[in-house]
């Protein structure tokens, strides 16, 4: 039997709460708890003093402590926040194993020998962590990891050889303290058998335990006897991959800097290749003679090649040096080509101040060299590469965020259906509700909920108000409202709810996949599906429709979406009932422009109800401009969405065509009209 090594465990209590409170800037005197699935996962000491306990329901916890700050769990954030703690410990004692965020173990031998005693080592480590990261922690020393962790919870140093005696009086629940392993069943069984303490479990014969309880119990039995299954796994500190070069004399010419960068980039790639890594985020840092620190991070969708690294460093330096040159010499004319930029940067008039004295390349994010596999098809062609280089060059001039591509996401307004992604970032976004960062509600479920609201209000409104504005033609909104109403079922079926199946729908075994009737026409076209409404018609006629057009005119209960192996389309986009149908405005102001609507008498047009204008609009003035005559209008269509969020996007939309061939999408919100789209 091997003798267990001495292990020093360092435990920070309630780490999930500590990390979450750090991230959310919750002051430490406020009670806080991390709640997962409506149960308290961890709570701070203040909250505990108010009676909050682990496993409590959220409502009960809040009843006991009304000012409780409820935080979300995020394992990545926990791990990230723990990294400085580990770094602080590593400064004193190498060979740290992170058992989980909040708990580290290290071989006690080194620090105890160095600091002259377990007590001294523990004090030193606690002080170090508190000083560096202002995180409280406790230290325990014992034989073996399991006992050390238990000792750390109690802040004890168990003398060598005393570990079984230390463990014996503890309850068997201690086996179930690790959040990753669920041993509640075993612990419950042991308790029912009368084995209430670890000592009682340890007194059993190993063979009996193995034959009665199974493999996990054997492990627990070993733990209870104070035998450690394994020594701590030493963490290897991350390799220093950054490369640096001192430029003496300082470089103020782009070509000279690029020459230096070439050697540096090659060194970087040699280092990376030596570790089997490649770089996907590169930090370029430079220090000027004046002591100014310049730093910029480049993201790359695919690993950087040495040539790519040189290019980026060169462009970056070009931008920095050119900018400093320009700010000094106040050159009014714009820079044209890189050759000209070189000339300008190398003109003898400017001397030291903008010159770069030190250059440093830091691989901020690396991947295993073999991990990135290029696609079988769709490799980067020559034209794509050229375009990519041009865009990267613009990024060097203006910053990485300045070049964007657009991704279409869900939404109802033209502006919120577009998400801009900086060039080089991943274009695959998760389809989230815009503006809704938190909240466990699935987007599709939200859509369905809103659909009910939007559909019902839109459908009822025209009938109720048909006579109220004399002759203004209030059969309006039928199209949009119909869309919204008919697509309620569509969303439901996308969300997987067992929607009602239309009686005469397509034959069950049919391979033809039907799109829910609520899908807009363009979506249906894009996904190559036949509209459910058409499927109904043609199924009754028993004529297979080869190519269906979505009309969306009838309100039918759509068939639930069948998954077929035939169509290779991606998961269809949610339909977002209530969104405006095509065509969309060609100009979408980044900020809504204020507008004024007036009627024939010159008095402003207001909303008397969410779907009712006070008078037909006659003229419109955008942003204080000249009045333009209204030629046609439709709406207002009430928009109900995100009523649960503060500043929710409710309002009424109105389309107005003017006599000069421009139409406007107006939104009535907070008592006035805003232009949210210009059909230019």
């Amino acid at each position, binding site marked *: 039997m091997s003798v267990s090594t001495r292990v020093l465990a360092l435990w920070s209590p309630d780490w999930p709460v500590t990390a979450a409170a750090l991230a959310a800037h919750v002051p430490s005197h406020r009670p806080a708890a991390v709640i997962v699935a409506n149960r308290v996962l961890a709570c701070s000491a203040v909250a505990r003093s108010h009676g909050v306990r682990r496993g409590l329901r959220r409502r009960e916890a809040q009843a006991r402590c009304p000012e409780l700050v409820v935080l979300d769990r995020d394992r990545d954030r926990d791990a990230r926040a723990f990294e400085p703690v580990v770094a602080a410990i590593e400064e004193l004692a190498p060979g740290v194993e992170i058992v989980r965020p909040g708990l580290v173990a290290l071989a006690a031998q080194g620090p105890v020998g160095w600091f002259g005693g377990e007590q001294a080592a523990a004090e030193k480590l606690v002080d170090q962590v508190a000083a560096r990261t202002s995180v409280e922690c406790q230290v325990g020393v014992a034989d073996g990891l399991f006992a050390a962790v238990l000792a750390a919870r109690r802040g004890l140093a168990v003398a060598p050889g005393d570990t079984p005696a230390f463990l014996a009086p503890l309850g068997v629940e201690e086996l179930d303290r690790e959040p990753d392993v669920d041993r509640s069943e075993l612990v419950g069984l042991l308790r029912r058998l009368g084995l209430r303490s670890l000592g009682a479990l340890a007194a059993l014969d190993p063979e009996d335990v193995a034959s009665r309880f199974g493999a996990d119990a054997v492990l627990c039995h070993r733990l209870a006897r104070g035998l450690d299954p394994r020594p701590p796994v030493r963490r290897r500190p991350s390799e220093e991959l950054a490369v640096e070069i001192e430029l003496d004399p300082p470089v103020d010419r782009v070509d000279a800097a690029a020459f230096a960068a070439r050697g540096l980039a090659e060194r970087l790639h040699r280092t990376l290749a030596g570790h089997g890594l490649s770089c996907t985020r590169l930090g370029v840092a430079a220090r000027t003679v004046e002591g100014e620190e310049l730093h910029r991070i480049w993201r790359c969708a695919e690993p950087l090649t040495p040539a790519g690294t040189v290019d980026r460093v060169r462009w970056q330096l070009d931008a920095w040096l050119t900018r400093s040159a320009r700010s000094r010499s106040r050159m009014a004319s714009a820079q044209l080509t890189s050759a000209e930029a070189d000339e300008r940067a190398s003109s003898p008039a400017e001397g030291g101040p903008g010159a770069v004295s030190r250059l440093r390349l830091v691989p901020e994010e690396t991947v295993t060299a073999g991990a990135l596999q290029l696609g079988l098809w769709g490799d980067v062609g020559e034209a794509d590469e050229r375009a990519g280089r041009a865009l990267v060059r613009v990024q060097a001039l203006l910053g990485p965020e300045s070049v964007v591509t657009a991704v279409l996401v869900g939404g109802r307004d033209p502006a919120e259906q577009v998400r801009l992604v900086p060039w080089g970032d991943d274009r695959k976004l998760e389809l989230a509700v815009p503006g809704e960062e938190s909240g466990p509600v699935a987007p599709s479920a939200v859509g369905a909920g809103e659909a009910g609201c939007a559909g019902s209000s839109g459908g009822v409104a025209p009938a109720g108000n048909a006579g109220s504005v004399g002759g203004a033609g209030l059969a309006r909104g039928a199209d949009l409202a119909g869309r919204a109403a008919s697509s309620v079922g569509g969303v439901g079926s996308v969300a997987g709810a067992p929607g009602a199946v239309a009686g005469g729908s397509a034959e069950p075994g049919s391979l033809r996949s039907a799109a829910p009737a609520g899908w807009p026409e363009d979506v249906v076209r894009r996904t190559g599906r036949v509209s459910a409404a058409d499927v109904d018609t043609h199924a009754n006629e028993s004529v297979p429709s080869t190519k269906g057009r979505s009309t969306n005119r009838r309100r039918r209960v759509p068939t639930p979406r069948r998954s077929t192996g035939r169509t290779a389309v991606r998961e269809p986009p949610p339909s977002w009932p209530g969104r405006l149908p095509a*065509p969309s405005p060609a100009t979408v102001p980044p900020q809504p422009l204020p507008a004024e609507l007036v009627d024939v008498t010159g008095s402003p047009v207001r909303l008397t109800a969410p779907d009712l204008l006070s008078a037909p609009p006659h003229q419109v003035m955008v942003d204080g401009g000249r009045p333009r005559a209204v030629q046609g209008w439709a709406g207002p269509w009430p928009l109900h969405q995100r009523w649960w969020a503060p500043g929710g996007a409710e309002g009424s939309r109105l389309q107005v065509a003017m006599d000069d061939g421009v139409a406007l999408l107006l939104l009535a919100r907070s008592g006035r009209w805003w232009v949210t789209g210009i059909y230019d």
Partner: protein
Amino acid sequence: MGEAAVTGVAAGADPASRLELARGLLRRMEDRSAAVRPVATPEADGRVLPVAEPLARLLPAGGLRRGSAVALPAVPGATSLLLALLAEASAGGAWVGVVGRPELGLLAAAEAGVRLERLALVPHPGTDLMAVTVALLDGMDVVAVSGADRAGVRAADRQRLAARARQRGAVLLALGPWPGADVELHCVDAQWQGLGAGAGRLRSRRVRVQLKGRGAAPGGRTAGLLLPAPGGAVAGAAGSVTTGRSGVADVGRLGEDRPAVRAAAG
């Protein structure tokens, strides 16, 4: 030799065969000159970027000629026209850059047929508009510049940009005034359809697009279009392409059929 052959045949043959002969000679001459002198532009084969069919009938080269500069003065319909011009080329794999247009409706772009993954935007170039445009002309197939007058682009700068576009075989589309452009496209008589007094919704817009510049008749050419047609793309209207002030070219039946189909689809 070619001349002799033409005159030799010209004596007896009918005009059709003479024309055929002349065409064959011309083709041979073109082939030979192409073989002797390699074309400098990177994409010698795709000299013209395709545009949607109703616009192709209007444009002199049947598309956006690489190396040319096209101006779209800021009149109602210019943005839609820009998107319509970009759509076909983008769908065919061309890269498009748009400089200085933060308010571009990207949903409308997608509806018009522009591939958003090949559409790069530089919304706020600031004072670096020239440098950004030059950098994009190096790599993109089409670069649309907006707000050039605001950024203080002078005539010399415009010439330099046009030269760069010519050299790189890119198309420069200018939103706003751009003196010296090869082609200028102008929307007139824009009229939205589908909207009543409190009823309906915007469906399509009828416009007449006027073309002026090189390769067009002195009086310009005009085409009636649906811009956008129902669904967001561009379609020919029931109108026709007019050359000069009087002559009516035959755009004909296709143009008349399309809107009917579109209307049924929408």
